[in-house]
């Protein structure tokens, strides 16, 4: 159950060129920056997440580490109420 948000994040990433490697080969805690996510793409990823989940990420979550892995993104989404149940 808890994997549904992670799966949605994965699916979102699959449709972009934010990473330099295939997202399907990445573990949930794999470092996205090591996978090619740069600072410009990080902002675009934030915008895509906000659009896809219809949320607004607060300032305190707009940190580099928020976007450092699929799991950390899911944790940030959970903080603004996006959980497996809600999704």
């Amino acid at each position, binding site marked *: 159950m808890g994997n549904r948000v992670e799966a949605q994040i994965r699916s979102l990433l699959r449709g972009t060129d934010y990473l*330099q490697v295939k997202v399907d080969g990445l573990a949930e805690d794999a470092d996205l920056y090591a996978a090619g996510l740069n600072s410009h793409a990080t902002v675009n990823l934030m915008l895509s997440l906000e659009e896809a989940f219809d949320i607004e990420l607060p*300032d305190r979550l707009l940190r580099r580490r928020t976007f450092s892995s699929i799991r950390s993104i899911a944790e940030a989404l959970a903080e603004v109420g996006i959980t497996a149940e809600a999704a």
Partner: protein
Amino acid sequence: MKPWLAAARAVGAEVASRHADDVDQRARFPAEAFAALKKEKLLGIIVPKSEGGAGAGVADVVAICHELGQRCAATAMIYAMHQIQVACIVRHAGGSAWLKGFLKRLASDQLLLASATSEAGIGGDVRSSICAVEQQNGRFELVKEATVISYGAEADGILVTARRTPESPASDQVIVVVPKTGYELNQESEWDTLGMRGTCSNGYKLRARGEMAQVVPVSYADVSAMTMLPVSHLVWSALWLGIATDAVTRSRACVRAQARKKGGAPASAARLAEASSQLQLMKANVVGSLRQYEAALGSEDAIAAPALAVAMNNLKTGTSQMAVQVINQCLLVCGLAGYRNDSPYSLGRNLRDAHSAALMVNNDRILANTGNLLMALREDPGLLE
């Protein structure tokens, strides 16, 4: 006044200013000024006391760059670029015994550090690399086509950016500290420019080798966001402010000479007032941004926040344009006396040097980056926060 600021002021007034025109005309390294700065131990001031330095802060470097910028912009720029490298090692050395040992040597031997971030083929985006750290048995090799290494030939060490491994994507970079004994430079281009001629920013093919312990233990993305970018914009802005301050000082002297003959301020004094007002705005921008950076230093979150990056970018794009505006205004104040190369009120070198500001890391690139960051900024902080 802190002792190192007084020492820097004296080096600026007595040494750097005397050789500034020759450095500019011959596009040569300001050797006299750097001999004096080393003699005064000013290259290692921000190294912590535990490593044999003076434990000074970024504010002290900012103040020194402002002093030197009024005398010889190339000296100020080289000093600024050196201190940016030192700041990156000081802040991100972590527990690395090699890097701490290097800082000790830097402070005791007054080593001058250069930077190799730009590379042929990356289209000016220093946040991506083609070259990579090639590791074998705890040692590395690295070959970089560096389109620019300012004062590379005069440096005692170079900080080089590269991909973490030959398999890493272009944006997954590290920064490696290489002392002079660990690299060879083959010069591939010359530096014959409009201004900032003494920085000798030639292009080189760099071949480096050493121990893996020389790699800074934090990703270059973090080093860049937390230290290199904000410190660069602060120290550069301070020296551009210095260039503009010198132009206003010359203009004031020019107007005062006329006023003494006339027995009152001439019409050009009103234009001088405008230049003085612009200079004050520029100074407020530098000091305010410095305070904002210092306030963020204590918190990992504040220093990595989009708000700080936006402020530091705005400082760079703002002051780089304003320096040229102030000097243009000063030209109108001084008239032909400022336009001449052979007058004490000459503004030619100031203007040529200041025009580099918008180009070294092109303002268009920075504005695009700021525009992107603004998408992640929710609200502007309060006036006194």
